[in-house]
């Protein structure tokens, strides 16, 4: 059975421009999409690419721990949304739903609304701005290679965009985590201390817990409102 270093060695071709491209796509999905399953999947893939890039800067074990923290965060988000969806379904079954409204909603899911188009455009603009920033103000080359520098700028920029465009706690939490992952990708190279790694991991995990807590409160609040109606 292949060990972790073997697996990483086999996938090492991803730890350069393909990983940056993966981060660009996943972060833009977070900007555009409001479908929680897709967003959580994008975050999982994003953490994978971040870990691949980190293996070039720090020890594999430390990068793997960072990846584990990220995937645990995704698990927390998944469980919260799953539970919330069950609650919402239970409330919906107790209230009569018009069939036309249901089919209209399923249609809307697959059409590009004006809002989605705007978010996509904003995401692309920020991506271009991040590319220009990486060219004009590259992070110190002696510690960060140019492609990782671009990945950092992309995640910080798109993370801030997600925060700015989002209303729900979970979406804002994902934006914050993308922003923090972008910064972390840079900071692990300049401060490889294990305590700092642990504390930044704790910060990320607590942000995820806070976002999930608020999302759960939102579910309870909307359930009470619908129940009262």
């Amino acid at each position: 059975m292949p060990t972790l270093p073997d697996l990483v060695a086999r996938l090492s071709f991803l730890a350069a421009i393909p990983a940056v491209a993966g981060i660009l796509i996943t972060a833009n999905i977070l900007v555009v999409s409001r479908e929680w399953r897709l967003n959580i999947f994008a975050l999982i893939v994003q953490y994978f690419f971040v870990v691949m890039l980190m293996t070039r800067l720090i020890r594999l074990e430390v990068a793997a721990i960072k990846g584990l923290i990220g995937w645990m965060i995704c698990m927390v988000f998944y469980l919260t949304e799953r539970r919330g969806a069950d609650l919402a379904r239970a409330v919906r079954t107790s209230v009569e739903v018009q069939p036309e409204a249901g089919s209209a909603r399923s249609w809307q899911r697959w059409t590009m609304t004006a809002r989605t188009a705007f978010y996509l455009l904003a995401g692309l603009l920020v991506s271009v701005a991040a590319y220009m920033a990486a060219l004009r103000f590259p992070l110190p080359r002696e510690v960060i290679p140019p492609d990782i520098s671009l990945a950092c700028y992309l995640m910080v920029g798109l993370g801030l965009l997600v925060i700015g465009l989002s209303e729900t706690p979970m979406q804002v939490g994902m934006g914050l985590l993308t922003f923090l992952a972008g910064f972390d990708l840079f900071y692990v190279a300049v401060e490889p201390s294990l305590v700092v790694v642990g504390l930044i991991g704790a910060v990320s995990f607590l942000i995820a817990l806070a976002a999930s807590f608020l999302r759960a409160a939102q579910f309870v609040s909307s359930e009470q409102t619908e129940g009262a109606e």
Partner: protein
Amino acid sequence: MIAGPIALLLLPLLVAGVVLLLSRWRTPTAVLSTATALALGVAALALPVDRPVKVWGGLQIVLGAPVSFLGRELVLEETDRLACAALFFTSAIIFFLAWRSYSRSLLFPVGWGLLSLSVGVLLVKPFVYAALFIEIAVALSVFALQSEEGPVTRGGMRYLTFSTMALPGILVTHWLLERYEATPDETWLLSTSAVLLAISFALLLGVFPFHSWIPALFGDSSPVAGAFVLTVFGNVIWFALLEFLEAYSWLSAHPSLSSLTLNAGLVLVLLGGTLAPAQRRLSPLVGYGTLVENGAMLIALGLRSEVGMVSLLLAMLTRPLGLGLMALGLDGIRAHSGGKDDGEGLRGVGWRAPWSTTAFVLGGLSVAGLPLGAGFAWRWSLYRALADTDPGTMVLLLLAAAGVMGGLWRGMASLLERPRLPEARSVFPPATREGKLFALSVLIALLLCVVVSIYPQLLSPWVTRMVDACALFR
């Protein structure tokens, strides 16, 4: 033998566990929290730093003994122990006010967790770890801000967002300063650090244009928890800023520091003073009043004098009384108006909730810095200092105080309005529904407020010790 830093870090965590178990019973939780916070404050203030003291049985404690924790040094210096005492006393005030508050949240256990992290922020060296502790504490505070029965706290989420954005700046500053020590010729590292640090602390303190989380914090969060975050944990940010300025003398001696803080403070004062009277709801009024307070504190720092430092430290000690009272009042008013705090919902609530209304108005007096409020103690010394050096700023501060009073007056007019129809007037019961214990807690806090306002010299030995221990601006 126990080292003081470890005791100050672990005891709050222990109390957090106990109050979490007792959280179903509000009175024992509040009594335990208030009494323990007072006891820890007295211990931090009175115990000697350099020699062991027997505390319980044969157990000895050395308050100033340095400790290595996860390879990092925890040191309790004179300034830190006074700051710790200030944290415990101010948190005791908020815990006491939270005793009879209507909204339910995880304030008591999370508050103790925040206190433990706050002590960590003050004691850990280097500051890079303090920045991470601050961020952990902010994420934790969201759990206290969300009330059990209320809507989702957008203010709490915004607070978390702005604080997370502040984290990279502080961490990178630490790295840049380390690089500067190795290559002192590269002076751009210092200027970049100064800019990053200014932005990071502006985000953490809610300086314009990063202020939007402060009014939002009272809009949909538990108000008393909001007061805890803004006063007790806000003081931690202030102490961290002072420690940073003291540690890096090039930064405190920077020629732009004074004008930067004065102008940032002035903008906050103008913003808060202008928007406070325009508010239809009471909750943003508390937020804009806080902005005026924050602005005045920045102006006090910008004076770069001992008088400014005295005003700033006095503000840190007294603002939990004013803001806490206002938050308690807001909480009570909301509870008696079906969760509303705007013009129509407030009509006549003052007659049903007279103690909440009293707490809100007199707490507002303190936030505005007017006589009979605890805030008057430090505003007066600031006005006197500004009268000599910068009378224009003093006049603007007074106008901003008038703006906050205008907002209070508007709110009070709605609160004390009688229903228009004579038959509807009978719906008001002659007696209050707030309860004697609520009235007692408001009365005690009001009494403290008035005593601090009339006799600020009661706090002056403590403040003098803090100013003497801090080498800043001397």
